[in-house]
């Protein structure tokens, strides 16, 4: 049995496959399905929706060095992952053409080791190298500016020490190397670094743009959907387009499982395989009662794991003070059910919104409780106890009147 990690074995197998003249299409096949999020990532600056200001500044920078490049997309997250994505870059520079990408661009993200030692050695050494000269063919189609680029993705997860080690490096080699830092929270970048960079803020996508994008994807993928589905997607994803697209794709799969005529089994598969293929014939889609091919609002909500309104209402009802009776038994029963049903406490407190019967002072108290429970949950406390505590304390606040 070939080992999972056997790289040598894998190479041998691949070589054998090539020798047998099997067209090795994997990984190169352009039709190979990829998650839609990757498929519809903007390919150049013009494709990026919203972010008008940032994009125009970036473009102008490009023009100033008299160029237009199609490779900049990798550095520009067109879809802010969260409500506030900041991209700052010391200089939004047009990267060299593809052949030169290797020698001119260094990308480090949080999956790479980025401690202070790496900044001192790897980053500094890369910054120090003189820029390789581009030959005429290389520079004809692409701008090839005379500097290298170091991209530090998720820079806010770098330690303070590592960041301060960057300070001098950034200045000393600024003639031949530019830095591009990408982060969610600019406040976590130390001031001396922030002041060395020009900042570009990526706003969360506004609903209109997100809607257009989703509709466009749905159209290209031939996805049918009910009215209101796009709005529902927008609502559950809270401005996070990647989330919305992931949900859309899942929903599309759920409603239109690709059923194609079964090809005759190739007989190089083992007998065991045949065994398990036998009971495939009945597609159990009917269990989900998907009579229509259209995506419904309900299925979106189910995929997104939105807590049903009824559950929240019940809990709120239980929290309201009752005359001469303790609220404890009812609350504890409901909370136990919520926890057993696997609803996440994180979602729960996001959903607990109060009507106008609750006074401002009470709301104030309740928000305080939320913040405390949130902190505790993030610290890894037990959900059952915390949610129970949350509900009981809300009930107490409501009782105070």
């Amino acid at each position, binding site marked *: 049995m070939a080992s999972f990690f056997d790289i040598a074995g*894998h190479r041998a197998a691949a070589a054998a496959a090539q020798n047998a003249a099997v067209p090795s299409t994997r*990984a190169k096949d352009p039709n190979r399905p990829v998650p839609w999020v990757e498929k519809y990532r903007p390919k150049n600056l013009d494709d990026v929706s919203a972010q008008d200001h940032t994009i125009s500044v970036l473009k102008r920078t490009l023009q100033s060095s008299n160029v237009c490049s199609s490779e900049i997309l990798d550095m520009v997250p067109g879809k802010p992952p969260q409500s506030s994505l900041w991209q700052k870059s010391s200089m939004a520079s047009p990267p060299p053409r593809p052949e030169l990408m290797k020698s001119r661009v260094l990308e480090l993200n*949080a999956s790479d*080791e980025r401690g202070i030692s790496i900044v001192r050695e790897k980053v500094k050494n890369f910054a120090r190298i003189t820029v390789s000269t581009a030959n005429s063919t290389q520079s004809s189609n692409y701008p090839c500016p005379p500097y290298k680029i170091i991209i530090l993705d998720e820079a806010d997860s770098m330690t303070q020490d590592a960041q301060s080690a960057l300070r001098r490096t950034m200045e000393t080699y600024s003639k031949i190397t530019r830095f591009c830092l990408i982060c969610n929270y600019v406040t976590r970048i130390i001031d001396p670094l922030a002041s060395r960079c020009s900042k570009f803020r990526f706003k969360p996508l506004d609903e209109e743009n997100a809607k257009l994008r989703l509709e466009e994807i749905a159209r290209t993928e031939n996805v049918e959907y009910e009215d209101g589905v796009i709005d529902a997607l927008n609502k559950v994803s809270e401005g996070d387009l990647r989330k919305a697209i992931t949900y859309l794709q899942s929903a599309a*799969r759920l409603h239109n499982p690709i*059923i194609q005529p079964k090809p005759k089994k190739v007989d190089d598969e083992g007998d065991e395989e045949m065994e398990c293929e036998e009971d495939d014939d009945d597609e159990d889609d009917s269990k989900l009662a998907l009579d229509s091919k259209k995506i419904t609002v309900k299925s979106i909500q189910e995929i997104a794991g939105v807590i049903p309104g009824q559950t929240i209402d019940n809990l709120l009802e239980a929290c309201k003070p009752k005359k001469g009776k303790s609220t404890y038994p009812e609350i504890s029963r409901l909370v136990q059910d919520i926890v057993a049903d696997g609803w996440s406490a994180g979602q729960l407190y996001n959903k607990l919104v109060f009507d106008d019967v609750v006074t401002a002072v009470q709301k104030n108290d309740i928000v305080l409780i939320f913040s405390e429970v949130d902190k505790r949950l993030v610290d890894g406390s037990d959900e059952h106890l915390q949610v129970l*505590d949350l509900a009981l304390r809300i009930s107490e606040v409501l009782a105070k009147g």
Partner: protein
Amino acid sequence: MLLVDKHRPRKLEALHDSPLGSRLWYAPQIMPDRSDVANSGDFPHLLVYGPSGAGKKTRIVATLRELYGPGVEKIKIDSRVFMTTTNRKIEFNIVASVYHIEITPSDVGNSDRVIIQSLLKEIGQTQQVDIAAKQKFKVVVINEADHLTRDAQAALRRTMEKYSPNLRLILIANSTANIIAPIKSRTLLIRVAAPTIGEMVGVLRHVAELERFEFSNKLAGRVAEESGRNLRRALLMFEALYAQNEVVKDNTPIPPPDYETLVGQIADELLADHSPARILLVRAKFYDLLTHCIPATVILKLLTFRLVVKIDDVLKADVIKWAAFYEHRIHLGSKVIFHLEAFVAKFLRILEGYLMGMEF
């Protein structure tokens, strides 16, 4: 073999047919049509969450089997050594088949980032070893994803996107509260709810039939109730019940686990006498529990719920409040016995204060 393992459904079809069928997850949604391997790229990263004993792992194993065939069940355990930046060696166990691997990075505590960084990249850089494999991607199952440190989760972000042609992740968590938003938006969230009492009775009946046990609805109902909707626990209790008793009747007592009995004793002792001497007395019992590797959170939770049923309604909210408070402290601090005793002291104070008619 334990009943739990013996009768675990191994195929998605079996899951459909079992009494839990109504609760199957969206098979077509996450399961690429097997006859159409070309579409396997549609299989998203998954984040499966739900309480323990709800069947997360069973479903994942069944899905893996569906993806790759029975080969995934041939697993072996590797031990690998990783080096941290400070040149410390970490031993790490990996459960792997040819097609997938399963890791529990939280085993190594704060060094989990090193594992995620080096291991996942190594896996992501190569394609499936077996050319005849049904899927081109490999699957990495990460257990206890909610215990991953922030750094480790941040390390996952780009890896998930960059290596998506070769790699799919299945994260398993009890709750999504500790998982950072960028990871959540890259995965398809799948909630696995605990089975209802009715469903559990159905499963127990099914198992009893297969094992030729004498089955009674009432007893099964009690077992299900007692287990707190945890199917694994219910099946273990069920088995213990039939192993310990020659004849099982409706009212045969269900033996609770030893640690629950001990926690029950602690609760009784605390309620019997509210003196500081009692705190000293129960300390020995706490140590006993802790040395037997019962997590402090479990002890505190059990103790709280044992105490709460026996005290006045007025005090309940207060006791829960302090239980939640000290439970949080347990996670922040390093010496759990302090926080357990602090809770006990606080509880006695609240109770005594109430009985004496004093406000604290």
